[in-house]
């Protein structure tokens, strides 16, 4: 098995692990971590695609590599936004939760709480 295929299998496993974390862990910060795992799994799939596209004297196809670099930066920005939201939520409520009914209070109640 080539190291590229191996990396691809790790990527697949990371997507599965991350997905489990996203679904099963109720804490937003843990979900953000899990999202980053899925992200790196996806990037690894791009990585083996790039490696298997070695040609023309290059040891990997540059196009998917460029996409991964773009993806890593976007993933960081997404993490930053999610972290900022989580922290603000924690400051406002003393807890960080994604409970669905947290959003169903009428606005006048919310104004009182503030």
């Amino acid at each position, binding site marked *: 098995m080539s190291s590229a295929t191996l990396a691809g299998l790790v990527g697949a496993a990371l*997507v599965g692990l991350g997905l489990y974390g*996203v679904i099963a862990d109720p804490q*937003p910060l843990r*979900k953000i971590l899990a*999202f980053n795992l*899925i*992200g790196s*799994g*996806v990037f690894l*799939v*791009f990585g*083996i*695609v790039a490696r*298997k*596209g070695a040609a023309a004297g290059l040891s990997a196809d540059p*196009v*998917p590599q460029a*996409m991964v670099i*773009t*993806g890593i930066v*976007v993933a960081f*920005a*997404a993490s930053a*936004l*999610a972290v900022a*939201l*989580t922290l*603000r*939520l924690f400051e*406002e*409520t003393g807890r960080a*939760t*994604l*409970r*669905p009914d*947290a*959003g*169903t*209070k*009428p*606005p*006048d109640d*919310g*104004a009182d*709480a*503030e």
Partner: protein
Amino acid sequence: MTEGASAFAATAGGSLLALPILVPAAGVLLSFLLGGRQAERIALALMPVQFGFAVAIASLIWRSGQPLVYVLGGYAPPLGIALRADGFSAVMLVTTSLIMPAAGLYARTNFATPNDGTERRAPLVFWTLLQAIQAALSLIFLGGDLFNLYVALELLTFAAAPLVCLDGRPETLAAALRYLMFALFGALFYLLGVALLYGAYGTLDIVLLSRQIRAEPAVWLAAGLMTAGLLAKTALFPLHLWLPPAHANAPAAASAVLSGLVVKGSFFLIVRLWFNVLPALPNAVPGAILAALGSAAILAGSALALRQERLKLLIAYSTVAQIGYLFLMFPLASGPWSAEAFSGGVMQALSHAFAKAAMFLSAGLIAESLGHDRIAGLGGAGRAMPVTFLALGLGGLSLMGLPPSGGFAAKWLLMKASIEAGQWVWAVVMLAGGLLAGGYLYRVLAPALSGNRPRLKSPPRRSRENVALALALAAVLLAFAPPTFFAFLQIGRPAAGAALR
């Protein structure tokens, strides 16, 4: 790639395609740089420009009868990126460029910068992100490369999520965070599918891919992952949980854009995926699954809307239901009746965009005038603010699918297609959905139109009522779309029955 050359001969006027993306993007940067009142000025000044671009693109397509193509940087696909506009893109562009200024005009009251010009948080963020949504949607409608469209999806997420929690109340923060999580999940699954497609074919250009796609495991998995991701962003049942709190808690002008336009962005990509990228896949089973989920969305969303106590939540749940209709086109849009089903689906997207924007703006006016939006407290409100409730009612007409309205035209076309295809079950669901919609609208309108006039905190401004009414009238007017309109929608659409090839 010589055989592909013709697909990338940039058409005359093709360079026009870059402008509806670049101009609002420049607007975002300038608004953020100059800050203060400039953000609002730039956003409002660029809206007519955007409308001009959309109309110019549509008329070029109409005159040539061909899709417009533009190759960026002179690097033709598969190495570079192409932009393409077909009839469907043009129609969505025009719709966006009409709803955006409506939301903008309405929002001027809520997001005004104080007279001394001090920069305030909410106005700066709102006007900047409104332009970002415009740029992202333009790119979604025009993008011809699947990775470029991923960037567009992310742009849309980053522009839309902060709007949900603009007022900073804790429940809106939770709603925004949930929305962000679903959107990130959607974008990552979409991206995973993109990786697999590139691995299989070495290109991400939609036209080049569609020529090579074969039904093989990598393609099926990619299609499944990308569809699942896009469904999460479109909020199709059972991935709809994020939508009602997010759309119901955002400021009214933002809700109008989010519910009317933003969810259509990811829906548009699902259509692109199945009709433009994967026409070679046998789509009977996936189409039926999508339509079944759509049916469940119609029934569950409508039933939940019936039980809501707040007007904005009711309207948000009705979005969940109306999104369901969009997906009924998928099992019907291959075969001889395909044009009808496709037109019906597009018509539903357009009429819902106008109707839902009108309803959210009306609901915003009601909430501001009464100081609340509890349905139980709406008694007689219709007499106090008739124009607002007229806009709400006309929008509702379209949701129910009663004539004359764009919603009626959409549901009629879809129903006709489903009966011609012998797939009765979708028609039954549509009828049931229409009845349920009638039910939840009756709950709002019946008490509002009877009883004593309540005392208003402040009467709604006539100009803002007119904005909502204009949108609602647009939804009604769609019923009178001439046959040429439907012919226009077919421009650039891959031949029906490409699956049979």
